[in-house]
């Protein structure tokens, strides 16, 4: 991929600089119960008709949310 210069890649040797978010059932709550202001920004995604949202400010840090939805694996990045 010519648009990437390997000598410019700035990564740590082991592990992750930002901890990925791997949701469990305990992570889930109805959005209506979260008490969020109307203008709070979200990332929404769907698999097979099931929909989930993530807080954009949390994804600023995690960059990756990975799990399973509707029996299918998913990976959301930001």
């Amino acid at each position: 991929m010519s648009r990437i210069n390997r000598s410019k890649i700035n990564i740590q040797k082991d592990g992750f600089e930002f901890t990925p978010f791997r949701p469990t059932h305990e992570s889930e709550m109805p959005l209506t119960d979260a008490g969020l202001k109307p203008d709070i920004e979200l990332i929404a995604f769907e698999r097979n008709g099931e929909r989930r949202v993530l807080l954009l400010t949390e994804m600023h840090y995690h960059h990756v949310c990975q799990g399973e939805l509707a029996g299918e694996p998913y990976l959301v990045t930001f």
Partner: protein
Amino acid sequence: MVDGNVHWYGVPGIVNGLAVLRDEESSSLWDHITGECFDGPLAGQRLPFWGVDITTVEAELKSYPDVVLLKSPGIPFFKSTLMNVVIGKNFIDKQGTTLPGFFRRSMHTAIDPRLPEGENGLGVMTDDHQAKFYPMSALQKGESIEDDWMGRTLIVQRGAIDGVPRAKWADGNGRPMQLLTRWYGFSFTYPKCEIYEPQQKAG
């Protein structure tokens, strides 16, 4: 899924000011926008990818009142603050960005000067790396435009509530792959992409 197996990903750093993904199983490096593996044992493979929707609580609840939130268990304060400075707490309407020095040092060339580096907009793309950028400033909230691209007509509309631009094909056959993005990141990922220019209004 890679060869039928789930690989687990995280971000070990950046290149071109953009997050790099690494999978725990092979330590290969992946482009987080295109899903392509560019370094390591899996180089050349590509993850299947779909679009996500950036929106607001108000707009989401209007269309999906029963939607489920996935809430993170916690974020280190320092890193959360740093990322809010770089990205901004409000991503949708914010124009401009502050790129730290280590972002710039990871860039393989100068940022494409055709637009301001922090210009926010909608990038649309095809599987074979054709792409076009629609600057947010070209559209008002609630407004839509039609544009000919790739031999088809694309309708780009900014949401009346959340102000987010979204693209769909006018022929009714779904949506192209798209993302809300800053110019610098999109132009590094899709060099020489087209840029939408509003037609001059008569008079």
